[in-house]
């Protein structure tokens, strides 16, 4: 991926810089990009392409990221409303460079993706669930995941992967105790 900073310099307009913490690193945004959605800034400014554009209206969930620990739809989140917050994207989910995040591993184990386009959003939404509800029921999973669409219809496997990841997370927290 080619860095965009060259062309962004040319677009800098007067106005204060703003900061975001993206995947644990402080990043500065300036110029007209402050007027952009979080999705555009992540994808086009920082080249974090894993967050996908699906509907532009917060209706499908493909663009889901976490802002201060809560899953949000980045396509309808304006960056200038979230200055100073911490943003977590699919690229930052994996903490251990040797090992995928349990949700990512469960997604592979259950062979969830077909076209794969929605799954960054699915996984980020699922992390929004599991980070607070370690042992969700099927009803809780349905309720929480219902807002993220998958046109390929991989829902059954998504559900199985979430249940599997919940067990993996439980086991890893048991070993740490």
């Amino acid at each position, binding site marked *: 991926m080619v860095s*965009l900073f060259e*062309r962004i310099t040319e677009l800098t307009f007067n106005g204060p810089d703003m900061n975001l913490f993206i995947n644990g690193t402080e990043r500065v945004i300036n110029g007209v990009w402050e007027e952009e959605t979080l999705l555009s800034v992540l994808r086009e400014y920082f080249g974090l392409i894993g967050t996908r554009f699906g509907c532009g209206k917060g209706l499908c969930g493909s663009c889901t990221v976490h802002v201060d620990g809560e899953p949000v739809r980045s396509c309808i989140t304006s960056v200038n409303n979230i200055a100073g917050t911490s943003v977590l994207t*699919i690229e930052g989910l994996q903490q251990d460079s040797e090992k995928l995040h349990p949700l*990512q591993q469960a997604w592979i184990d259950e062979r969830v993706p077909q*076209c794969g386009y929605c799954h*960054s959003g699915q996984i980020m939404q699922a992390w929004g669930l599991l980070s607070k509800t370690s042992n969700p029921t099927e009803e809780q999973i349905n309720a929480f995941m219902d807002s993220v669409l998958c046109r*390929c*219809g991989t829902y*059954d496997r*998504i559900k199985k992967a979430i249940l599997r990841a919940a067990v993996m997370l439980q086991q890893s927290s048991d070993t740490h105790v």
Partner: protein
Amino acid sequence: MSDITRRSFLKATAWIAGGITIAFSARYAMEKSVAVGPTLEFPNTESGKGWLQIQSDGKVHMLCPRMEMGQNANTGLAQIVAEELNIRVEDITLHYPTTSETAPIGFTAGSLSMMLFSKPVAIAAASMRENLRCRAAKIYKIPVDEVLDTEGGFVIIGSPRLGYQDLVTDESIELDCEDSVIPNLYTFDPRRIKKQVGQEAEPRGIKDLVTGAAVFSGDIQLPGMLYGRVIKPPVRKARLKNLNLLSAKNIIGFFDIVRDGDFVGVVCRTPGSLDKAVRSVIVEWELPEPINQEKINQLIDINVALQDGDLPRTVQDENHSPSANWDVDLEFAVQLQTHAMQEPRAAVAHIEKINDIERINIWTGTQDPWAVKRHCASDIGFSEDQVEVHPMRMGGGFGGREHYEVEQDAARLALATGLPIKVQWTREDEFRVGRNRSPSSHRMRLASDHKGVLSNWWHAYASGYVFYSRSRLPDWLLPIKRSTAGGDFGVSRGAHPAYKSSSIRVEYKEVDLPIDLGVWRSLNGAPNTFVIESTMDELARQKSIDPVKFKLMNLPDSMARLGNCLKRVEKMASGKLLPTKSGYGRGFACGVYEKNSFVAVSVDLHIDHEARKICIDRMCCAQDVGMAINPDQLRAQIESNLVWSIGMALMEKVEIGDGQIASNNFHNYIIPRMSDIPELNIDVIDNPTIHPAGAGEVALIAGSPAIANAIRDATGLRLTRLPIKYTDITVPGAL
């Protein structure tokens, strides 16, 4: 045994740097492609279609002949290569060629990948293996038939193993297997205990999909790239009446307007400024004639069509007796549906000048990159050599990415501005210009004797064009093809009865609707099967015969595989008792897709009056597409198809407003969500001696009629208009 020929290679790419390669040949092309039209160069058994190479390090490389959109066909083909070469799937490196790197190859559509490519790929890999065996025999100095297979190479008793790397040199060798005798194909050898084929290989690239690293066309970024969008008409036939672009030019980040007749493009420096600029454009459209739902309904009304006598096309016509004593006579309405793939289409185009010659590069997710190349060349006045399409992974296809559309937007804007341009269609753009599945109107009549033996079959219907839709072919050729092709095969798909009847007439009429249409998963296979299986179910119930028994009784011997699916699914369904409470129902349906794919589905559901909802509780499916190359991925396709059948039966409908496609996003085009998904029980029937057939659009055809039949079981109502809503059930006299 294959001949080894040395050739000077056309291109000095890294691909042909050294080692041994299987040549690709388009010599056996089915039909020469026209500039505007689908790419139809499919392989046959002689053409050695897979592009395989073993490089001098012994590593096996494969050029993927299929575009990837979630069906994982290339993983299946890699399993075949692995089987033939005695290696593991993970040992094969996959490459996705651009349109300049290989000869054209048929579009990725119609669930043809396994059917058309599995054997050529197996032949290519087996030819390579046997050639290498000859080399090993020379080194071992023994007759070739004494050289035994081993993992990644060969062996003879008492000598060290020879790996493929020991048999391949840095010299480029092209192995031409067109004229050779076909070697033993391990993939299709029923005696062989297979190690790769039939296994549940992990889909290639899955890790990139869960880490966000997978690259789709909208992810491409080029230095100096700008963002463009073309103002889309509200419906196909609309013409530009008034346009005011003044406010757009004042938006911070605005770059340029590109206008050529009704083509109006806006180019900006950021995605957000582009949104603002496009929103500020004041545009008025006019229509040569009013377009609305009522008009569309009239155009395809089957009863109006039948007033003129016989319909122009027949699928089957034997001993027809119009005045038979019909036991059932039903009218059906199937809705306009769209693909709504998760990734709205996007393309990046860039024109560069090399040695004074302009070349355009286009990155796009398309089911037919060579069609995009040809069409683009004719659209912007380039020669085909000046166009290179870089096919990208697609976020869903389903038949919705076979035309030159978003690529046209990007190519024209790149040409006009001289800069790299990214065009990301909005979801609203997708809805406005989507190639939707045509609505259709059907009348189906059946008669049987008192024992339930079918005697008379009459299915008549009208539908918009499916395959021969606008811009499928050049404007001058399309009307010719429509009148000479003997009927649009997209419209007739699925209309051929699987059942036997002494009198049969299946007829249809194609209508040129004033909205954009195209191919959608299964083409008209799902609508036609919905009609057939609903009517068969109704006749069985009216004759007080168990619907499954009734269908089995009327299937000819040639449909044994279909009957087997139906029996299996009945057994699966009976494993769980249906509650005897009122409002619970079970329905069955079956169908054949493209002659060789057989499926049966059962549905258990209940009507939840409190939630005012039709709730699907359980779906069982038995499917037989012959050899199961990757059973897990077959299951995945079945799951997907079953989910689609729920959408078709109960939710999805593109609304047409006054002079516009009114559905424009997921709030007014409802697709299934997680809570809509029932328990799924799937039986993949493996028939290892039967050549694999398509699986990507099979279960869908039986899913929606099984739902309608279960509603009939639960409520006594035969509902014939899709999508079926809860309110249809509460309205008295819905039959």
